[in-house]
């Protein structure tokens, strides 16, 4: 998939653990793992909003388009 999720990089930058983020945005660690691994088919705006709020970043910091 040409959309790459850079959540790991942002988490490292903010010094936050996946479990913490999952708790803040209200999703399971399993779902966050799906999102991080790029296996997710879609991301809800509400989830994206919560991630951006928790990590104090822009959607473009998390999602990136890379041509195959």
């Amino acid at each position, binding site marked *: 998939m040409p959309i790459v999720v850079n959540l790991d990089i942002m988490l490292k930058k903010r010094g936050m653990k996946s479990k913490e983020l999952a708790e803040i945005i209200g*999703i399971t660690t399993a*779902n*966050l793992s*799906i*999102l991080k691994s790029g*296996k*997710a*088919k*879609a*991301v*809800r705006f509400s*989830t994206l909003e919560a991630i951006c709020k928790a990590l104090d970043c822009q959607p473009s910091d998390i999602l990136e388009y890379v041509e195959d």
Partner: protein
Amino acid sequence: MKDNTKLLTYITYAILLGAVSVLLNDMREFDFNQFEKFQNWAKVADKNESWFTSKNAIEWSYYVISAGIFFWRAYLIYGFSYFLSILKEVENGNFFSNKNIKYFKKIGNIFISYTVGILILRFLLAAINGSSFKFFNELKAEFTFLIPAGLAFYILAEIFEKGKQVEEENDLTI
């Protein structure tokens, strides 16, 4: 939902038991001794006589086809038993599972092959009896409703296939 599934399961069991008992009763009433008579006839038959046109051979064919109709009816009941498998999947919450799609296709196959098989057997019976076989009159018989029912199950299988894709997509939406 679960209560509805339980009720449907009980109704399906009742229908299946009813169908099996009717079939067994019909088989009990059927004179299987005719086969024995044929065997005895085969032993003493005149080998020079034309086999196909002899009265015994015709009678025997008639009974073989009647037995074939019993077999087909049992096959239809077997098809109905897949309803129980589908209901079990639904009870477990697996609505759009691969198993359900497979069961719908199997039921569709059984319904259509049953109708086609019965039509062929009825045609053969009519040919043996020397009675006329009117295809369109046969189509008016109540069992032919199983053809559209079979097609409906194929359509359901397609819908469930699409439903499964949507469910997977929904599960992977974070």
